[in-house]
Each structure stands twice: as C-alpha cells, then as structure tokens.
C-alpha cells in the first residue's frame, strides 16, 4: 500500500485534492442545494425574486414562522402515501437487479469466452437493440399487454425493464469478463467443473467489482426509470418516479413541487447507505496473484 512507488509527492497530492474537491462540489452542489431547499417553501426553493431567498428562507419564515419547514416531507409521506411507491420501487429494483444480473452474467460470460464469429454479431445486434428509443418500444408493448391482460402489474414492468436493459448489461459484463485471465476457467475446468461451475465458483467471485458495478447501473435504471414505469404500471402499483412526476402537475393543473423535492431527497438516503455498503465490493480487486505472464 505505501511503498515509495505509491507515495505521492506533495504538489501532486494538492492537485489531486483540488481536483476531487472541485468535482465533488460540482457533483454534489445541486443536490445539497436541493436538500437545503427541501425544507423551504416552493417560492424560496425556486427563489425567482431573489436567489438569496433560497438560503435565508424569507418566504418560508413568513408562512411557517421558521426558516425551515417539513411541509414537503409531510405532504409527500403522510398526505400522499409516498411510502407505497417506495415499497413498489424497492420491489421492482430488487427483482430487476437480480434477474438482470443473473441472465446478464451468464450471457456476458458466454460472449467473452466463445471465440466464434456469431458472438460478434450477437454483440452488434444487442447494440442495435439498445439504439431503439425506449418510448417507441413501450408504445409498441401497450396493445399487446392490454390484450394479454398483463398490463399494470409490477412483474410485467420488471420483465420489461430487465429486457430493455439487457443489451447494456451484456456489453458491460462482457467488457469486464474480458479482463479476467482465461487460465482461471481453464484450470477450473480441468479440476472438474462444468463450464457453468467454473463460471459460478471461480469467475464470479473474481468478477465482483464488475458485477456490483453492473448491478448498480441496473438498479439505477429501475430506480430512475420513467418511460416504462409511467406507461406500464397502473396507479396502485406506481413506483416512485411516476409518483414524483405526478406531484409536479401539468399545464392545466397545479402540482406540488415541494412534495416532489422532498420525495427525491428522502429517496436518496437509502442509496447513500447502499453505495457505502457496496463500495467495498467494488474496491476489492481480486485477480492479483492469479496467474503469471
């Protein structure tokens, strides 16, 4: 960890820190601003009159007598039963991630270990598939789903999300698998593994960083998806994002933006925990010492 080779000279350290700090500021500022603003009223949050209102909460104080208010949170969670959507989202996310990873790692592994020409064409096809705008796909599903009476249910949305995301998962895992030395599977096969066992017992443990990262993206996709969930789920099964969209209103009708903001902020907290938890897995590079050459 700390040999002369890995120690950094001071100027480099400073440059590094400066860069990371600037980036963090850029990345987190809008969110922190939102977090702060979620305890304000809409007028302060958007602060059209004077941007400092967002910090001081002048209008919030006028209405609520204090510069902070939990009205947005109260509205979203208590009044609008946002927790229902959270549960739905949790359900969708868990299943999407698990299914995606299961079938995606199998496929990605096969693609990375087979040298036949069709592999390339499969990869290209997957890529072309991904090029289709999801909204077109979804509008194509609707008549069929209504016909089959599967429209509106969580499992349908899960399957659709998994399928739509497969090209991405496949490519990503394929790229990760490529970097794992072939000798590992070979040795496992000689030791008596079927291809599948070699995959499960030897490759997957080494692949954790890749799998977890891919999982993270599958998760974010399911979590952030609007195109599919808004069109395929019925109101009772709605996930967070369509619910948040509903808080925002439409041209002719009033929404409640602060509910949306509060919902967004509170939905980020579990992600924080999740990322902290999984970063260990991402960090642990495991190929060291596997093979020489």
């Amino acid at each position, binding site marked *: 960890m700390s040999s002369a080779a890995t120690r950094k000279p001071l100027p480099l350290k400073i440059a590094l820190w400066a860069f990371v700090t600037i980036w963090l500021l850029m990345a987190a500022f809008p969110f922190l601003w939102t977090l702060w603003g979620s305890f304000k009223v809409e007028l302060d949050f958007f602060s059209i009159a004077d941007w400092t209102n967002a910090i001081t909460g002048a209008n919030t104080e006028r209405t609520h007598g204090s510069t902070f208010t939990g009205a947005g949170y109260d509205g979203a969670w208590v009044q609008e039963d946002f927790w229902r959507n959270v549960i739905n989202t949790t359900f969708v996310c868990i299943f999407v991630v698990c299914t995606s990873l299961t079938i995606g790692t199998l496929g990605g592994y096969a693609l990375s270990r087979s040298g036949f020409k069709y592999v390339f064409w499969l990869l290209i096809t997957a890529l072309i598939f991904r090029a289709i705008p999801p909204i077109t796909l979804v509008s194509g599903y609707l008549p069929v789903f209504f016909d089959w009476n599967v429209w509106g249910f969580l499992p349908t949305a899960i399957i659709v999300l998994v399928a739509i995301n497969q090209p991405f998962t496949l490519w990503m895992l394929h790229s990760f698998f490529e970097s794992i030395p072939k*000798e590992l599977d*070979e*040795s*496992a*096969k000689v030791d*008596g*593994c*079927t291809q599948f066992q070699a995959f499960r017992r030897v490759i997957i443990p080494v692949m954790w960083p890749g799998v977890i990262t891919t999982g993270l993206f599958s998760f974010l996709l399911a979590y952030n998806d609007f195109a599919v969930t808004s069109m395929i789920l019925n109101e009772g099964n709605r996930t967070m994002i369509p619910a948040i969209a509903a808080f925002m209103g439409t041209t002719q009708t009033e929404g409640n933006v602060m509910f949306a903001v509060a919902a967004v902020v509170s939905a980020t907290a579990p992600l924080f925990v999740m990322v902290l938890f999984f970063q260990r897995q991402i960090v642990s590079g*495991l190929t060291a010492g*596997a093979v020489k050459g």
Partner: protein
Amino acid sequence: MAEIQLRNISKRWGAFVGVDNFDLTIADKEFLVLLGPSGCGKTTTMRMIAGLEDATEGDILVDGQRVNDLEPKDRDVAMVFQSYALYPNLNVYENIRFPLRVRGIDPSTHDEKVRRASAMVELDEFLHRKPAELSGGQRQRVALARAIVREPNVFLMDEPLSNLDAKLRVSTRAQIKNLSHELAVTTVYVTHDQIEAMTLADRVVVMKQGVVQQVGSPTEIYDKPANDFVASFIGSPAMNLMSGVMSGGTFSTEYTEIQNLSAPDGPVTLGFRAEDAQVVDSGGQINAPIYTMELLGDATMVTVRIGGALVSVKADKSYRAEIEDMVSIHVPSEQCHLFDAQTGARLGD
C-alpha cells in the same frame, strides 16, 4: 486405466504451426516427459490432451475412445499450469480443496487429502494465505498440490518445479514419481530440465519447433541421439559437436584428428560428451588452446574453441591452467557420435 493415443495431431494458429503432426501412443501408467526448447509446442500438446485447446487436425483417443469433443472435466485429467492459474479469491487450503469440492467427493475426506497434498509440497504453514501473498515458488507448489490432491487417470504437469529450489525440487520430484507409480496413473510431464527428464521418465519425447525429434527411454536418448539437435540438447553440459570431414575412417578438423571411426567419407558432424573425454597431459586427439575455464564445484570445465564451436571437457576440480595454454584432450573413438552434416541424422549403428 488410461492409454492415450495422439493420432497425427496438429495445432496451427493461422500460418504459424505450434505442433505438427504429433503421433504417439502413451501407454497406461507410463510416465512420459516432453522435452524441448522454449516455444517448441510442449505446453500446446499438453493443452490439447487436457481439452483446453482444440486440435486443428488429428484425433486424441483415451483408451481407444475419441475424446476430441469431450469437455476437460470429462477427461479426468489433473493439470499443473505453467502459469499456476490459482484462484485468487480462495486461500491456499481452498485452492487445493477445490477439485474435491467440484467433483463431489465425500466432504469428510477433504481435510485429510488436502493436508496430505499440502504436506507433500511443504505448504502447511501457508494454508490460510491468499495466492497474492505467496512467493513464486509457493504459488507453484499450490498448483502442484491442487493437481495431486485428487486421484485422476492422467496427470498433466507443465514445468511444475521450475520455480523451486534444488532441494525441494529433488524431494518433490521423487514424490511425483512415487505418486504416479502408486496411483498407477498415466503422466505427461513437461520440463526443460533434462535431469528431471532423465530421472523421471519412462520415455522422453524430444520436440523442436512443433516436430517430434526422438522418442525413447532416457538412456536411448542419451546414448543414441537420433540427430544432432537431440545430441546437443540432451546432457549437461550438452554434447560437444564439431563439423569436419571424414576420410578413410579419420575425422579431421581444426586442432583435431580422430581415427578408427566407421562412416563414409565426406563432411560430417562429430559429437562426444564432456564426461567421455579426459584432459591428458599429451597425446590427446584434440590439442587446442584453452578458451575459458569454469569452476563447477566438483570439477573444472575446460573449454576450447574448434572451428567456431565450443568444446568442453571436465577436468579434475584441482586442475589449474591459464587461458591460452594448450590443452590436450583424449576422445575415445568408440564414444563418438557421427551425424550427417546436412540433415543432422545419426550415422551408423
């Protein structure tokens, strides 16, 4: 029971020929050593037997059964990889135990087997370590232990001792030999070390650039090399080879005249082994200035330069002389090997 037949197998990558037309039957329980210079196709041959590489041509038969299309796991071979190929996420113990686990061998016997294998390669202290925390030789020993822990029909070992020290090497070598006998398995062993080849092999295959040069018992190969390549490759130091001309049973070249040889007249290559010749005070067949001298511990190696080729003989460890001094070397004619100057093929007997 495992007799392996390799029927004219070849491996090509594009135009490059890795193994060319390899044809051999490895008898059941035979200990076969593949020997040859770096890059001659030893590993490739072994990988084809294991099923890790498809033969471009030819059939591989185990006990008369064509196995070209069988998966490695169904060929019941154990293999030590030249590059170790350890499982980086498992510790040494689990690495060794892995083949037992995946083959569904009764778990209650695992511990004993693993400990026996690890003791054999002196790894007991390191069972809890991950491969990344091991030295090169230790990793190689893990790979070895992993191969011997179960009892397969065929052992494939690709330079399994190359990173071990002499002492460990000798003892492990003995253990491998012993094991292969005891388990009565067919063993294919790749090495670049001829001592290893000599001591272990029932038969040795000498390869060069993908082509088999000679197949035979260690003594055969040592005593009757089929061509000048084998002659120069086997033995340490290698056989001395000199180009010269035969005329009337006498071989002559710079500084050299050896009589009483039976071969047709014309250009030939003559070879003899360092230990078959002696440094004598005078009257030797070779009389040349000393080119270098090396101290070997138990002997001194005296080298002269004849027609561009270096010729070495062992002298007593107390022998002392200066470079450029003349030395006389006795080469008994019955210990000489003659090879065709063009094809390199052995002449006579």
